[in-house]
């Protein structure tokens, strides 16, 4: 799986195109490959409560609609998939 800047914990979103890397202190493009310090950000897609159903959509905890790219840093129910 690609490790893109937009999926990194240290990626501070500026807009839909780009963000600020708080490790390298520079502006980076969202869809470009991340660096060697890449740290996966909490997102629904890597949460164990998320089940994908169709492209860009899924279900959270078996009931609520969710989407894989939703940031989950503020979600109290987030748990890493496979951990």
């Amino acid at each position: 799986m690609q490790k893109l800047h937009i999926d990194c914990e240290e990626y501070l979103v500026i807009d839909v195109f780009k963000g600020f890397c708080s490790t390298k202190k520079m502006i980076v493009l969202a869809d470009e490959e991340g660096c060697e310090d890449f740290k996966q950000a909490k997102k629904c897609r890597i949460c164990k409560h998320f089940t994908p159903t169709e492209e860009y959509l899924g279900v959270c905890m078996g009931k609520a609609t969710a989407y894989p790219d939703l940031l989950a840093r503020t979600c109290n129910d987030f748990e890493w998939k496979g951990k």
Partner: protein
Amino acid sequence: MSTTQMKEDVNELGLFFQYGKRFQKEVTGREIEKDPSPRAKKIRDLYFETSSSVSMEFPYWYTRRWFELEGEIPIIRRAEALNAAFSHLTPAIFPGELLVMGKTHHLRGSYPMPWLSESYFMNKEDEMYNEALEAGKLSSDMVTKWGIGGGNVTESMGNIISIAGKFGLRREELPILIRTAKMWKNRSVEDIGHKYEQMVPEYKEKEAIMRSVICMFDSGYTLPQGREVINYYYPLKYGIEGIIEYCKKKINEVAGYPDMNRLYFYHAVIIAVKGIKTWISNHAEESKRLMEKEKDHQQKMEYAEISEILEWISSKPPRTFHEALQLSWIFHLAVLNEDCISGMSPGRLGQILYPWWKRDMDNGTLTRERTMELLECMRMKFTELDCFASMGVVGGVLSGNTFNNLCIGGLNKDGQSATNELEMLILESAITCATPQPTLSILYDEKLPEDILMKGVECTKIGTGYPAWVNNQTATEFIMNNYQSEGMKLEEGRAWSIGGCLETSAGTWMPIELNGNQHWMPGGAGAATSVGVHFIGLPKVLELVLFDGIDQRTGEQIFPPHNCRLETYEEVLDTFKKYFRETVKVLCLCNNIQHDVWRKITPPVINSLLKPDCLVKGKDIGQMGSRYNTTFNVEVCGGVNLINSLSSIKKNVYEKKNFTLGELKDAILHNFGYRHADEVKSYSLMEQKKGQDVKKWASIHKLCLNAPKYGNDIPYVDKIFENWESWFCTMCHDYKSLYDKPLYACQISVSTHGPMGAVTLATADGRLAGTTFADASMSAYPGTDKNGPYALFNSATCWNHSDSQNSQLNMKIHPSAVKGREGARKLLELIRGYMRRGGFHVQFNIVDSRMLRDAQDNPDEYRGLMVRVAGFTQYWVELGKPIQDEIIARTEYEEIG
């Protein structure tokens, strides 16, 4: 000015577009240029590189929680949904910021609110979109053109989808946007409102009115709140925990007693405020996280300070100016996140925050330089605001602006000048850090000291269009006339301020103790204004009079045929009034229903907790919890073109009999022989192209153009204008709002003169089809004011401005005319000249029109160029071409003496 002086500048229509002799051969730049602090410059540079971005985080969590609570009491359900959304917003703090937090984690972020309106998000082929089209709701979208530059995401590219040519959405969020929107189908304010507004007997006529874009847009589900002045009093005095404690105490008093809605309201406030508290705390934690990994010492210390400030104000009242400013900003954001809002004005912020600022300055913990940095950061925060609504609303009406008006001056509770040293710094920061938001207004009164007025002139001269100059006495008179029936006394009338771009709004004074003294804090005390009847295109109504109720653009019968032969001018005028009344009536009834549905489904919780006297009464704004509730209005657009057209018809058809009405109609249908504006891609009379048989209508066109025009101190046309104003301002009172209060007149154009001109045929004043109307309401039509500024003032003030919520006058002045201290004095005298005549509002573009033409050709070289459109300033590159053309064409005053 003589004809020979300007010979080279006269276009083929005989219009000048300039007044006075041109002294400068070279393009003249703005005289005053100052730089922001390095900190603000860095933030502004980043802003210039930032695109408007939409995210689904807030609507996702709002919707999820809402649907979990099926059957719950609506206001509790609403508060829980808001709580979930605020609590889950991802925190974002950008390096260098002193003031933090935004609507979303994007720097320039916003999001859709499908609970208000969802049909826009559907695909064009989608059934809901077609239904909306049938209802006429999207017609205005089709005639709106967006700016091509700046932060607008005008085209889809890569993984980014352009929505409405303005906002960028990441492709991976589109399915959840569509899914969420579909969940609100038949549940949104738009859909439920639509269901019930159809029960109004004249509903079919309303649909037809919307399809022909006689009215620009609906009210209840588009921008249901705003054009008002916020009130920061409760958070500043009590803090978040204090508000929660207050509500708990109130619950103990009201639980089980009659008027049980109070119980639910107080409980809802607690729920919503707890969501805001979590939102702040999440940012405090994020700042702490950034601080721990930060190596740069200064940045590390700043993250630490931000974290500490946020942690404190997440529960307690502010201790310092910095904390008070930050907390005010957070509650401003919270209200903007609650509803789709434009024009939520901070009001007299310098007077509100003065006690904290004075204390910090006196005890040496704050400096002037630090104050300037904080104020510049505040300007950037307001500038970063975006409002997500349909293209017709955001583009055609708002031009992407959000209208947060910060007011300076006016009088205090005791009738003395209310200005202070902090307001001087606010003006200075608007000079050093020139950005569109917050726009500034000076509440002009003869009692204001000379230094604040001269500082205001200095600011005006930077050419960004602010401050607007607004007449305190005229506004107070309007406020007293409008609100004394709700118990307002003069002392409180003085607390008024501007909501949105130019909506005079009721205020109040609230007591707060600081530094051992009692201060009277000004703030908003009325509900949203500019709700009700939105923007009736007056020339379009006249067009339908001439063509027996049929819209010639679409061929549809809009109004019932009047079957009147229009044999006299009086018959024309009476028929116009009849059609206009029908329009106001049906729009008022339908929009009352929409607003009723809005208050039932999405009651305002956060704005209500702020606005006196909702917390005291236990009622939200929708239940008339605000102290003042006479706030619905009738907005019109194109008034000057209406007056000039009536003048032309009266003179040419009925008095001089230069041509018949039939001949005029024929000329109008053939656009006086010119090609349509859309064909030539030019939207003013400055540059239009003739068709092949232009000669056939040339003499009629010339007579129309030569008919007496508003703005020249000509009694013939000014009398028509005075009669119109007198009738219009009175007739509005015949219609009642949802709250059983009379409507009043509102006369601003925002950007509607572009799209509404686009759907209107040529007019009897010589204006051509598809070109914009005159901007604002007191501005002369470009190129037709030939007798100088004071003649324009005399025309504009031939009626009593306090009969209306506002009036609006834009002037464009060449920088050389106000150069130096002598020029500044002349400009102040000009302003005084208008204010002393009773004019309500005047504002200026100090710019060389040739620079604007160059900016149109080379937008990449003018990213930071700003202009005054109507009641707001916007980046040139983010404006649509019709509005750009209109601003270029505005008469440029080379002399103002």
